[in-house]
């Protein structure tokens, strides 16, 4: 072969190679492929006989660190919301909260940018004053990453899939479990535990961890007692026997534990199930709510319907649950005996539902620096604006 001919062949091969390289487009990942979507941090909880708390995201785009998570509170018996975001830490990464009851609350800051651990703050007066503390690791990016019990015990799920426990007084943290150690237990193996998604204490103060199970038909909620972890979740009905279940939220208020479960079918269709457990540990499930391919944008737990008006002396039970979906629907159930109800069309920018006593529902709509509160009276079909609050979002302070 002569040199010119060899050069020509090499050039031809190069041209073909270039054509092939240059013609390909980067393949976009298929929708829904890969890991499950992150549970939303936008959430609310109403304490029986106590205040309502809500976490919403305000400000600008996350890419410029101009998003700031705000904690707002509505004291019991009032209609007005006020800002209660704990001071001293940039919260671009998110906020998670847990309440032992009454006006007390523990808030945790999710790590963001170069901060890798999670400062905490606790209040006993509804957010008027905060006491700082620390979790040496970073909280997981899930709405139920923190759990607390009366007396001051704390449990936390970290971003590295570990569960930390702190005794009353927050003197320090000890490792309670890890994803690997929990998955290796008989209860974990039966669930084929894949990730930890929530932490709480039961009505009796038993540490609870929850996660996502690969084994179908199993709700991955585990309780710690007698030095070991055991299955503590509800038995699922036959209709959910072939679905993989993930715990979206786990919270205890008063003496009732509320769980929101997402059951996904092999073809991708998912349903939402609310579950409640009393102090005895016996679970009651709602009917499955088909999500119709929509994502859950926010969750809410609160006091239920048909119960006596809660007071501080008689907190009652928390049993209502609600969600806002990406399709624009808002669904709500008043308790174990109630069906899912679709709420009237939401006002613009509504991001969070707040479930008050007596089937009263509020909605919070953040837009830039303005937080608007809407109220739906029992039996009403339209929303009424009750408050527009200007929040001093510190744009540019985290850049």
């Amino acid at each position, binding site marked *: 072969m002569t040199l010119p001919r060899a050069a020509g062949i090499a050039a031809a091969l190069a041209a073909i190679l270039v054509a092939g*390289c*240059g013609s390909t487009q980067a393949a976009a990942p298929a929708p829904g492929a890969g890991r499950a979507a992150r549970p939303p941090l936008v959430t609310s909880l109403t304490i029986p006989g106590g205040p309502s708390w809500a976490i919403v995201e305000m400000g600008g785009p996350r890419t410029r660190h101009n998003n700031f998570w705000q904690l707002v509170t509505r004291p019991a018996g009032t209609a007005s919301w006020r800002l209660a975001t704990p001071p001293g830490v940039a919260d671009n990464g998110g906020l998670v909260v847990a309440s032992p009851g009454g006006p007390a609350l523990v808030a945790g*800051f999710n790590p963001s940018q170069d*901060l890798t*651990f999670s400062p905490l703050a606790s209040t006993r007066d509804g957010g008027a004053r*905060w006491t700082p503390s*620390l979790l040496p690791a970073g909280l997981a990016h899930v709405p139920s990453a923190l759990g607390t019990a009366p007396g001051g015990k704390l449990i936390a799920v970290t971003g590295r899939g570990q569960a930390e426990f702190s005794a009353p007084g927050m003197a320090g943290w000890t490792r309670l479990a890890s994803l690997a150690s929990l998955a290796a237990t008989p209860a974990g193996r039966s669930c084929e535990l894949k990730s930890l998604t929530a932490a709480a204490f039961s009505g009796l103060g038993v540490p609870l961890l929850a996660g996502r199970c690969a084994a179908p038909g199993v709700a991955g909620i585990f309780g710690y007692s007698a030095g070991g972890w055991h299955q503590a979740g509800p038995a699922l009905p036959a209709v959910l026997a072939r679905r993989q279940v993930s715990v979206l939220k786990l919270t205890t208020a008063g003496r009732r534990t509320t769980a929101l479960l997402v059951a996904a079918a092999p073809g991708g269709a998912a349903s939402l199930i609310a579950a409640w457990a009393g102090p005895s540990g016996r679970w009651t499930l709602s009917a499955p709510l088909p999500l119709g391919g929509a994502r859950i944008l926010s969750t809410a737990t609160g006091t239920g319907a048909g119960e006596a008006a809660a007071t501080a002396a008689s907190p009652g039970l928390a049993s209502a649950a609600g969600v806002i979906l990406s399709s624009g629907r808002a669904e709500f159930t008043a308790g174990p005996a109630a069906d899912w109800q679709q709420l009237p069309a939401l006002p613009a920018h509504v991001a969070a539902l707040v479930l008050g006593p007596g089937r009263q529902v509020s909605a919070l709509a953040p837009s830039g620096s303005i937080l608007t509160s809407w109220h739906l009276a029992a039996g009403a079909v339209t929303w009424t604006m009750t408050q527009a609050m200007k929040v*001093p979002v*510190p744009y540019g302070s985290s850049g």
Partner: protein
Amino acid sequence: MPGMRSGLNLGNPLLAAAFRSALLHQGLVALLIFGVLAFAWVSIREWRPGGAGGGTAGRADGLDAEPSWRMLLRVGFGLLWIFDGLLQAQPSMVVGLPSQVIQPSAASSPAWVQQLVNWAGTSWSYHPVQAAAAAVWIQVGIGCWLLAARSGRWSRLAGLAALTWGLVVWIFGESFGGIFAPGLTWLFGAPGAAIFYCAAGGLIALPVRYWRVPWLGRAMLAVLGLFFTGMAVLQAWPGRGFWQGRLGHGAGTLTGMIQSMAQTPQPAFLAGWVGGFGSFTAAHGFAVNMFAVVALALIGAALLIGAALPGDALSRPGTRTAGTARADGQMLPVSRARRWSRTLADRRLLLIRLAVIAAVLLCLADWVLVEDLGIFGGLGTDPNSMIPMALVLVAGYLAVAAAPARATAAEVAMAAGVDASVAARVDRAIQRAARVLAGAGAGGRETRQASPEHARAGAGATEARQASPEHARAGAGATEARQAPPEHARAGAGATEARQAGQPEHAGADRGANAAQEAGAPDRAAAGAAAREPAGQPGGWRGRLSPGRLVAAFAATDARTLAAAWALGVTILGAFPLAAAAANRSADPVIAQAIGGSAAVLNFQAPGFRLTDQDGQPVSLAGLRGKVVLLTFLDPVCTSDCPLIAQEFREADQLLGANRRRVELVAVAANPVYHTKAYTRAFDRQEGLTRMPNWKFLSGPLPELKRVWHDYYFPVQIVPAGGMVLHSDVAYVIDAAGRTRTELNFDPGPGTSASKSSFAAELAAAALKAMKSS
């Protein structure tokens, strides 16, 4: 807001001033080099008797006259390199090149390409002023070198330098011309302008024996033909957005590119043209792409066909050959096959010519309407790929049009209008010369007597010289036939002709002749000087490097070679500082000064404090006497600035080396809520500071902290609604006697590795300075 990260903007005045200063200083050095060389040259030539003259360096002789294709490439790309070097002198290049040009070019490429490009971008960002100045002088130097050195070893080295630097630019500056990224298209300049610079450099670097080989032009055209054909296929490939002027509510791929180019700051009329073409493409995207596909395909096909068809030099139009010469000089009639061959060659050349014209016109249209000339916006590094591509196209055509094919010297002489009998005698003389030089061996140097008849004259001109007047000058394009004593004749051309005439025994002479040609100016001068010495003088490299020989060689150098040497010096003027900077691990402190401003020089007693370190040990400023203290204020739960500053302190500690024993790095907690030991320890773990023995993160009761903040003019403010605690970023250098010597505005800037390294270098330098003044 103070304390928040600020970046480097493109027109940072400090960096722009430093860049101008570097260019000015290096420019003066370049002038100095030129002045010294010129002075020495003139002086030596005046001083040495007979030192002048004999300089034929840099000129081509006879059949080794630089062919037109090579001249076009050399001059064209020489000017382009100089122009690119001047573009590189734009002030925004210092900061903008890595972030606005280099890294975005790799954005769509695979990860390994991005890693490679990011390494180069990071290296540039560590020493932006040196890198930017180096790019100017390297490119200007290469350009001048190409223009100055017309032939010989100097010229080939210039081509090699252009090839090398072109590869550097293609890989690191153009991310391999984007060939690994989606959306590759000829219209946007694929496969990158730099590859054509490399091709030109490689062609210029070719040895003389390849200058007129018949297949060179064909190979160039074949490669270009394949390239155009491949680009046509790519352009026609479906699903890449080129067939649609609009995609949904947005612009198609080509439309979007053109519209973005129209937004570049440029003269209004040009923006109008480009914008108008963008609108046209939006409305008629299919037609525009179809035109591009068809044009590229036709051009490619024509070039390939033209490269593949047979044809030789004598059959070209305008050749005045009458036929084949016999050995006795009588002409034989032209055969029918030869006439047919001549017609086919005419058509072949016409096809190639039309293809090249069409390609050049297409290149120019794309250069204006799509690439938008490529030089506007403050960050244009070159006029994009169309001009270099057009140069290579035309060079390919010239190479085909000028290839001598199988002509003998006599035939070529006849083509030049020289009498056949004379041409035959010349042919025989050259063949005798070729045999003699073949016997002298490869690599033999030309030896010639110092005789004016052997001086070369005129670029591009060929000369037929002999004692006989029949050997008149034949003009450009004709080959040289020179009669001379055989032992002094240049065998290059003759040997080439002899080989082509099927006399391989003379091929060896070709190497000897080529070596003489490629020896270039200094070697020619050395040969000339050696020729003046008695024949048979032993050489050897020691002899050649003797001062006398070197001076003689320098004196015999011609102006072109001197210019080439100067251009080499300019290139080294850029390359050497760049290499030295790349070897320096620490970034240039000028980056930190550009972000945070220059350090303030102070001299007052530092306010004392008594706090507790992260281990619970009491620490006071008085207790740190005898050591230099680098003091700053850090929020232990900060998400952005403070972790960066901590890293800069850590790196400064490493730069101090053994001197770190004399330095204490101290931070005071700067958060009124999260300030206790638990948080400072968590911060230390996060930043890897737990193993630094001279690191202290101090905290204490809030009233004591507030007093320290007040004494050091350090404001701290809680920001509501999820904001970080507001504070400034400052560092103080306190000497061993407890006096504050320097205040550094320690805004960490963009947090790149370069800015971190720069701040660390600034801090370490300030600490060392304080040590010396203590």
